[in-house]
């Protein structure tokens, strides 16, 4: 067994896991809070990547300022979208937000393809992080380590906000029982928009941050969307620590499995999820059964 290969696969898994964490947390929060399954989440991730290159090429900016600007550009757009299309139908059956965000996904990806074409853009890691670093005899790209570290830091920040701040408390209360929270006078309307905006920001940031690692193309968000869904299912609705674990399970399964079982890694992943669902059928995503 090529231990170096396994080791690098694990490293890749951890790196991808860190990114997956950013997108999955956002997805989980939005779902836990408003029961909205945001199918456009992957498209928002892609928007982050494209906003990055738009700023870099259009304004001639460097990578770092573009990295900061990209999510800031995407968030207002995301909020506008949420107010225009999701907020008006929030009282309808869950199906509708599912379908609307699905349609939005098509729109966003279609828009990206129209504006930037269907090709793939590769980005080099920004200086001074262009080199590799030696880890246990393996040369591993330095930028990946940095990006993973940044992602983990931000995720920790999200956790801190949710666990320690008053607004985080409100979010947790509503996630547990929306009806009760509303009765207590918690203003849920703008809260959902705020959280949606933040989730979009996280996704866009992940897209921009990951551009030098994962390449940029219109459908770049789809795989990470799928993986995020799996992570959230594994972890449970609105359950952030669970989602975090789920993200790394998914990322590591993909990266380790992908090495040895080429092209079948996703099938393996599905088997994992299916097994998980058999043991935790109703509790994972359903409403608690109460009259």
């Amino acid at each position: 067994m090529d231990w170096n290969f396994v080791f690098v696969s694990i490293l890749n898994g951890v790196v991808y896991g860190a990114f997956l964490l950013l997108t999955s947390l956002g997805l989980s929060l939005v779902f836990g809070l408003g029961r909205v399954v945001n199918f456009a989440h992957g498209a928002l991730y892609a928007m982050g990547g494209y906003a990055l290159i738009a700023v870099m090429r259009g304004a001639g900016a460097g990578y770092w300022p573009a990295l900061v600007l990209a999510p800031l550009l995407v968030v207002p757009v995301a909020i506008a979208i949420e107010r225009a299309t999701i907020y008006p139908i929030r009282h309808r059956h869950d199906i509708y937000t599912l379908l609307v965000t699905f349609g939005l996904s098509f729109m966003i990806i279609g828009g990206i393809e129209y504006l930037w074409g269907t090709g793939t853009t590769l980005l080099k890691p920004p200086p001074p992080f262009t080199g590799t670093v030696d880890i246990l005899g393996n040369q591993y790209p330095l930028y990946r380590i940095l990006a993973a570290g940044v992602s983990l830091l931000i995720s920790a920040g999200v956790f801190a906000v949710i666990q320690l701040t008053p607004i985080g408390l409100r979010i947790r209360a509503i996630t547990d029982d929306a009806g009760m929270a509303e009765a207590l006078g918690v203003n849920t309307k703008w809260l959902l928009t705020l959280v949606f905006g933040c989730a979009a920001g996280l996704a866009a940031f992940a897209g921009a941050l990951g551009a030098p690692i994962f390449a940029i193309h219109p459908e770049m968000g789809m795989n990470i969307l799928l993986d995020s869904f799996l992570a959230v299912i594994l972890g449970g609705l609105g359950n952030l620590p669970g989602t975090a674990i789920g993200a790394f399970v998914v990322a590591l399964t993909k990266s380790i499995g992908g090495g040895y079982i080429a092209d079948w890694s996703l099938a393996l992943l599905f088997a994992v999820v299916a097994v998980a669902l058999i043991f935790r059928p109703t509790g994972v995503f359903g409403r608690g059964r109460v009259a």
Partner: protein
Amino acid sequence: MKTGARTSRASALAAVAAAGLLAVLPFLGAAPFTITLLTEALIFAIWAMSLDLLVGYTGLVTFGHAAAFGLGSYAAGYFAREVTADFLASLLVAQVVVVAVALTIGFVATRVSGVAFAIISLCIAQVLFQVAVAWRSVTEGMDGLVGVPLPKLLGLTVDAGTEFYLLTILIVLAVYVGLSRLVESPFGRTLQAIRTNEDRAAAIGINVRLHKWLAFILSWAIAGIGGTLMVFMKAGTTPMSLHWSESGNVLVMAIFGGLGTLFGPLIGAVAFVFLRDEFTTRFEAWQFAFGLVFVVVVLAFPTGLAGIITHVWRSLWRARS
């Protein structure tokens, strides 16, 4: 006879009349390209109606319905090429494969509700897509299955063009009438009860899980019929038939047409095929336009074309009395 049974008789007759009208089109001088487009539209209609059974009538939104269709295509196509191009035999084989897969996957998938189900269904489709790409020895990977011969019905070859078109019309009619009966039956009503209110349905003695499972299997089986027809029409298939965007397309057809009506998705499929043909030749950003139409329909016209038509029809009726 109760009113309900009378109207379903009427609609069945209307369906036969419509089928008859469609059937004579090639003989009235319709262009071959129009016939081809219609054939494709009718095949999609079968697919969209099967989706309606699951989404519109049972309330199980699926983002992976391409899997059922594509699986049917691959199974029938492979059989037709390797063994015999007999249409009924290929159809049977495809049905066996699709039902077997739906049975197993459905058993797990229907354990979960609403949202999780939608996501799992997407995962299933992705997995089957991956299988189609990776299992090169059978599916020939991204190149796809090619060289599927023309189908044979009772020993006679069904030519592409008008003959295949007529075969398709026949099958669509059978599916439509069959499904219409199904949704009006106690089983169909039970599915709708589950869609309306699962708890209430369980409280009146309905075995919700069993019914969801059956609906899933039936829905896949019918989609598989569509897939079988398609693989013969295109003389092959590719993994793209299992792609998530295809699942999106069939959802568009069904929603645009009007979920929960059967004839809605049917006209939705026809509208989709003809509109797409228009869009792709005229607009570069057709995917964007498509998404836009989808969003607008979901927001403003949740009952789709069928809803609009029924509304108009009812107001005319009321105006007369």
